């Protein structure tokens, strides 16, 4: 309906951890609408997009990530996801690094970043094996709270600051939500 289209995809529904028992404690992520997410990412001074191998299960997401990369956000390609970028001929600001060593570096304020320009102020996770992403968010949540933890994945990520609700079973809505994030970043 026209009203819904104007409002955009509701990404605040189903705030349940994708692995239901992942309920760590009193501080839990809030769900946000795509436009807000996009605006917050845009506002970040040193954002880092962190993508994982689940992108291979939904290859269109590589194109969306490349679109974000072209807007100047560096991409940390974890696991073997860098192959998706190689295959698409986009390596401009793509770095190959495992999520585990990356998070290890992120927890230290004195790290200079993948480009040597300094620590990041926001990380945006997507396409990463759920339990792994959840745990690495937990590391940052507990040991480096200066970095904003954002998930634009199709899962509710309880250890993030900002996340979508669960959209794991509705690919179309999820794709549209990511498009709205990108559109908001372009504004």
């Amino acid at each position: 309906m026209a009203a819904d289209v104007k409002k955009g995809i509701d990404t605040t529904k189903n705030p349940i951890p994708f692995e239901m028992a992942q309920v760590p404690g009193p501080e839990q992520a809030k769900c946000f609408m795509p436009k807000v997410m996009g605006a917050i990412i845009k506002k970040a001074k040193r954002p880092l997009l962190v993508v994982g191998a689940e992108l291979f299960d939904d290859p269109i997401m590589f194109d969306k990530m490349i679109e974000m990369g072209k807007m100047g956000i560096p991409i940390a390609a974890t696991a073997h996801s860098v192959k998706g970028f190689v295959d698409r001929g986009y390596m401009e600001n793509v770095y190959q690094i495992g999520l585990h060593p990356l998070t290890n570096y992120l927890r230290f304020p004195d790290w200079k970043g993948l480009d040597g320009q300094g620590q990041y102020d926001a990380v945006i996770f997507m396409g990463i094996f759920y339990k792994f992403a959840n745990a690495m968010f937990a590391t940052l949540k507990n040991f480096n709270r200066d970095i904003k933890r954002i998930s634009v994945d199709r899962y509710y990520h309880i250890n993030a600051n900002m996340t979508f609700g669960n959209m794991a079973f509705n690919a179309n809505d999820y794709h549209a939500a990511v498009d709205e994030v990108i559109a908001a970043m372009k504004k």
Partner: protein
Amino acid sequence: MATKEGSFSVEDMKNVQINIGAVVKEADEWDQEMGPFPKPGVATLRDWDYKIMNRYKIMYAPADDTCTLCTYGPCDLTGNKKGACGIDQAGACGKIVLIACLMGCCAHAAHGRHLYHWCLDKFGDMKFDMGDEILVDSPLYQTIIGKKPKTLKDFDEGLAYLEEEVVQLVASTHTGQEGYFMDFESKALHTGMMDDLGMEICDLLQIVAYDMPRGAADAPLIEIGMGTLDQNKGVLIAYGHNLAAGAEAMIYAENNNLWDKVDIGGVCCTAFDLTRITETGRDSKVPKNLGPKAKIAGAMGWWRKMVRAGVMDCVMVDEQCVYCDVLGDAQMRKIPVIATTDKIMLGLPDRTNDPVDQIVEDLVSFKMPGVAVLDPTKAGEIGIRVAIAVKPKRAEAKIQNLITAEQFKEGVEKCTTCNECAFVCPPHIRISDLIAEAKKGNLEAFSSMYEICVGCGRCEQSCPQGINILDLFEYANRQYVKNQKFRMRAGRGPARDTEIRAVGMPIVMGTIPGVIALVGCSNYPKGTKECYDIAKEFVDRGYIVVTSGCMAMDMSLYTDADGKTIWEQYGGGFDGRNICNTGSCVANANIMGAAIKVATIFARRNHRANFDDIADYILNKVGACGIAWGAYSQKAASIATGCNRLGIPVVVQPHSVMYRRSFMGRADKPEDWMTIDARDGSLQQVEPAPEAMLYIAETKEEAMLEMAKLCFRPSDNSIGRGIKLTHYCDISMKYFGKLPDDWHLFVRDVKDLPLVYKEDMLKTLEEKYGWKIDWKAKKILSGPLRPADVSFDPTLIARKIRTKK
């Protein structure tokens, strides 16, 4: 008064009572002096631990932001806040890690203690003899305790030491005791070392008592898979880790000529140890060549699939890795259960002292769903007799082992696609998609996911429609189960000294690119085939591949184009292009033992009570890397931590974040990689090799790349470094489509460069990294962290400096 070692005078002494403890006479029998750290206490090796932890920073991923261990709690520790007792989040994580490692260590140590008593009771004391080709016969025991056991009874000293350490370690976890995270981790590393010791004692006891292979590269090929269990016989399953009762069942079957009436299959590590019994043909009180008569039904991850597949008539459980609902699952299908150790009694009545005939009657007539019988001999006899007698009774009772086509259809029709099951599935199988395909008559989706399902059964509990999802999997894979028949090599035990002599130099120089150890359980992120894929990648590349436990079993379920399993494709030696099955979970100790043997046999380092020296050697010179891809248990946490203290890095799968702690280096911090050159005590920055001690990989592709990288060592010569870099770069090109971003860190000289990439790499070094290249001479003039130097003798231990500058 003492005059010299081994003698004393009692002249002029009155009213003196002399207590003689252990008699020390090792000096005459061992060419090594006693090292600095015999039976190290909780804090003895703390300096070594801090060396590891200062380089490999402790990284926590808390699974819980609260602490609920005392009545002050719950305390919110989010953001590393302190709780009421003063412990912060890092300390709380460290405490949980230590407790987990202690659980694992105790599981192995208690197994060893049980076997110690059982073997002495059954066989009496025996000479500890590993044969002529294994003279360094107890490398961990000797490195930690500083003594050589001569008989089985001698192992009591090691067990008693271990037990005392464990009590001290457990005590430190009480609220109000240890509170600093690094000291928790030092204690966890100590626990890991205790675990190594416990595992070694356990495996050595059973190798000698049950006459198992002693480093036999040609250990027999044995049958594995559900399809190997002969359904025309009574099928007894021995499930767990302790062979005592299962072995007694085999001996009973042998002595009473019952093999035509009964089949014995093992699940989890008991399976391995049963198939290792009496294979050397030495003197033994157990019938000869018994082992290969047992079969490996499967790894622990297949347990519930086996129950649903209806392949068993009776089950004996012993200890470790047994699903807690084994009785309920069995009872539904009228499969009698016999609990055989006091570790797992399942609420069953203890019938140890009742007559065998009465127990058999009660189980066969289904008067009781199960019994606890803590005498292995009695349990073994009962297991065999019940399996044989209950089979026709189960047939008469018309037990429905398998669902019908109609029931399958009803099951799939009930699905409302609510996806509650997907929210709890560890490998994230979209079960509703499989069901949607099944509704259309296509079972392929269910078939292809069978190996990926870890068999946890959480989906069934979450399903609001009560669909028995594992039954649907079974229905769709019935033919596969029947055909699940493969062959794998029986556990061969330790590496022989001769094998170590042959490979020591190539390992340390790097010309054998590394030793890869695949160990662990069955909680894989993407199925059992990954075990085969990883193993094959590294065997094909010429690494020494060793394996054990459930991962060894799971890699056996796949074949090449010629129908050969990995065991039929390659030899079983401790050598490049071989795959070497050491045995069960406790046989992991043989892998650590092999690393020690490289130091002591090849490099002639004194290992006696000299743990940190040996670990330092391994860290700097032995390119070994473990992978626990399906690790699920606290034992796996403890094993990995034990490897880490010994200087062996480990890669784990993404589910392993539940262990909470990892050890990660920072390649960007030069000061972390300063290493002593033992020749003169000078400090040298080395490349980050190995870069991490405990690394979590997201996918098998990432794991393989990291494993290749974690085999780099500062001691590699140029040929070896070139070989290692070649594999690192090849794996990256194969699975990542590009060279890794950090390859240049490992280049010290032009000779280190892989031939195939040499020209391009030289250009990149000049253009991207600003190195100076003499193109005519094809030489690197400046740029590397350090020059290649074959004489470089890297160490982190100051006492190893030979001549001070």
